[in-house]
Structures are given as C-alpha cells and as structure tokens.
C-alpha cells in the first residue's frame, strides 16, 4: 500500500468500515510509514474530541410538549407503581408478547416461566423508553462509580456492582431507582456516544445459571445475563455488537 491509498482508507479504517485484508495492508503501511502515522493520530484525536457528550444538543422541553400536542391522537396510558410522568408512552402488548415468546424459547423451562418473562420483558422495554423521555434518567448523576455505588447501597436492600467503562467507550453517567418485577431495582446508566444504555440489576432469586441471551426488537437491543447472584438486563438502541461488548466488559471485569 502506498501513502495515497493509505490516506484514502484511513477514514473507513477508523470507522470500522474496512474489510480484513485492507485493514491488514493499512496497518502494515502505518507501521512502516512515519509520514502516515501522524494522520492516524490526528484522526484519533479528532474523534476523541467529538466523543464529548457535551457537544450534543439537549432537546428543549417545549419541543417535547409540542410534538405531544400536535401528533394526532397520542394515547394516554398510566402505569402503576412507577413515575406518573410520561403518560404518552405506551408499549404495545404485541412487543411484550414477542419478547415472552423469545424468552420462553431461550431460557430453560421452569427457571424462567413464561408469565414472568412476559412481564419482565415488557417492563424492561417500557422502563427504558420512559427513562429516556420522562427527563427522569438519573437520580444520581455521576461518572464516578464510587459515588454511584454508595448511593445505591443507601437506597436498596442489596448492593449492586457498579463499574465504569469510560475508557472502553461506555461511560458511566449515573444511576436511578427503578421498579421492575415487583421490586425496587438498580438502574445503572451508561452512555455510548449519544446513546443511553440502561443496565437493570437485582438479586437473583432462584438458583439459575445461564449464558447471556440477546433479543432485538423495534430498534432496541436487549441482553440478559446472571452473574454472582445478580440478574442483569441491559437495554439500548446501540448496535447488538456494541451491547454485547458492553456485557462482556461487565461480566469479565469483576
């Protein structure tokens, strides 16, 4: 590979859009060429700069209201046991049913009965959507795991594991209490670029051991796993690949 080709391919390379063989050629060229290496460095520096979440614009509250009032016939549906804000979200039952079916297939029978799966799947999705729209994403906004964890310890009857993976692109941004499966649970919130990941954690009830299970539906990816006596549900609109990477970090780094 020559320098000109390298310059053409450097962007697809940092964007993970390059195929394997071209990637190998490019990496080899970068190792050998002192003139092209700074280009890669500057691209990385630029990307790091653009990763700053403060660059994102906050949606004005007034806009949320306007969309709500102008869309024809937005339905109102109150949910029990949760924040009463955000009446304008309703998660179709069909979605929950689809989750339930998937869960029933993937989980060993008896460990995770259908009714519970049904309820949980619906609750995880709607909790996530609600947290994004209700302006109630965080009770404790903090990027410091040593702030977030003690906060949970003081509020819950259990002590959820809280880790930060900012260096790996999943920044801890805080936590909040949520209500799932008839109990209080920890919702640890992460940010990937501009995308929010909700990680719901609560103590495992029955003896279970299961590998991570993933589901995708309507733009959300959901992953579920157990570890060290806790049940974990991660949900986000990041790619399935990214969510898997996130789960791997969570599972291995403890």
């Amino acid at each position, binding site marked *: 590979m020559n320098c000109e080709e390298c310059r053409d391919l450097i962007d697809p390379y940092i964007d993970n859009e390059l195929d394997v063989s071209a990637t190998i050629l490019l990496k080899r060229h970068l190792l050998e060429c002192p003139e092209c290496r700074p280009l890669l460095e500057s691209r990385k520096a630029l990307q790091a*700069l653009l990763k700053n979440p403060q660059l994102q614009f906050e*949606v004005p509250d007034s806009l949320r209201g306007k969309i709500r009032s102008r869309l024809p016939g937005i339905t109102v549906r109150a949910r029990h046991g949760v924040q009463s804000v955000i009446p304008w979200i309703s998660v179709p039952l069909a*979605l929950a049913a689809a989750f339930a079916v998937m869960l029933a297939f993937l989980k060993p029978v008896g460990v995770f009965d259908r009714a519970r799966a049904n309820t949980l799947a619906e609750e995880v999705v709607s909790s996530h959507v609600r947290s994004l729209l209700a302006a109630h994403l965080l009770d404790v906004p903090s990027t410091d795991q040593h702030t977030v964890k003690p906060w949970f310890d003081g509020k819950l009857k259990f002590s959820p594991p809280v880790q930060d993976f900012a260096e790996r692109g999943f920044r801890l941004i805080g936590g909040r209490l949520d209500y799932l499966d008839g109990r209080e649970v920890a919702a640890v919130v992460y940010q990937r670029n*501009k995308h929010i990941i909700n990680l719901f954690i609560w103590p495992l009830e029955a003896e279970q051991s299961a590998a991570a299970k993933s589901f995708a539906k309507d733009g959300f990816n959901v992953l579920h796993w157990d570890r060290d006596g806790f049940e974990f549900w991660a949900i986000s609109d990041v790619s399935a690949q990214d969510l898997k990477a996130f789960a791997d970090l969570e599972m291995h780094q403890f």
Partner: protein
Amino acid sequence: MNDEQTRARFEHLLLPLLTDAYNLARWLMKNQEDAEDMVQESYLKAFRFFGGFHEGGNCRAWFLRIVRNTCYTALEARKLKGKEVPIEEDENNGIEDPSPLPTAILDQNTTIEGVRKAIEQLPADFREALVLREFEGLSYKEIADVSGVPLGTVMSRLARARNQLQFILLEQKKQEIL
C-alpha cells in the same frame, strides 16, 4: 393492524428518536428555533407516511432521512426566496483541503463552543456526513441511505469533512495564540 395499534407502534418506534432527530436538525439548521420546527414537521410527515415503513426496517435511518429532507427542503425554499441563508455550499467552498494534512494533535483545551463553531463552518454536505457518523453513529451504508448518495461519496465527504474540521480547529488555535 388497526389505528390504535399503528399509533402505539408509531409512538414506540419514533418517540425515542427525538434526541437523534433534534440533533440532526440542529446541526443542519444551525439554530434552535428552526430545528424545533423541522423536528415537528418531520414527526407529522413520519406519521403520515408511517404506512410506508416496513416492519423490521431500519426505523432510525428511515426517520433521519425524513428529518434530513425536511431540513433541506426548508433551506432550499429560503434560498429561492432570497432570504439570508445558511446554505453555502457547493462542495468547493472557500476552505481548501489542507495538504499536507494538519497532523498536530488537537488538545483537550479546545472548547465545546469552538468545536461547535468549527463544525458549523463546514459545507452542509460534509457537515451532514460528519454528524450522521460521529453523533448519530450511523454506518456508511446508513449514511448513504439517509443522504441519498453512493457509498463512495459518503467516504469522500467524511474524509474531507474531517480534513477541513482539523484545519479549522488548528486555525482557531493559531488565532488564540496571536
């Protein structure tokens, strides 16, 4: 699917995309007021055309395309009316592609405001590609779909957007030092 179900599905799929839609509109229109108008209009359009969106399709790309086209339509209309307009741009506006590329490492002192201004200075096509990639996290294929251009164009727009952005940021630095 009856009306009620369609509406519920629309809410479920589209309302969580509000932040994405607003950010794209905000970067394209360069001001809050216009961005809000564009987002509202986009939601109404999306609601009207929701029947054309296929189950299992890429909802985000579909909706962002609507937002993008809504913004461009508005910008074009203003251009015709001769109002003062922020649409500059054929792809060779004033900023030259720097050559050789500026390779100085951008430091962390670059302010948020500085970066935003620099992005706003980019030609619209480049800005759009950059925003869809860096802030909306779309793949090249998705950007090609949203912008309605071939993959090769996406690649070159992104490369040139980044070159120019690095150049503008370095210029800002020089100004500060002087």
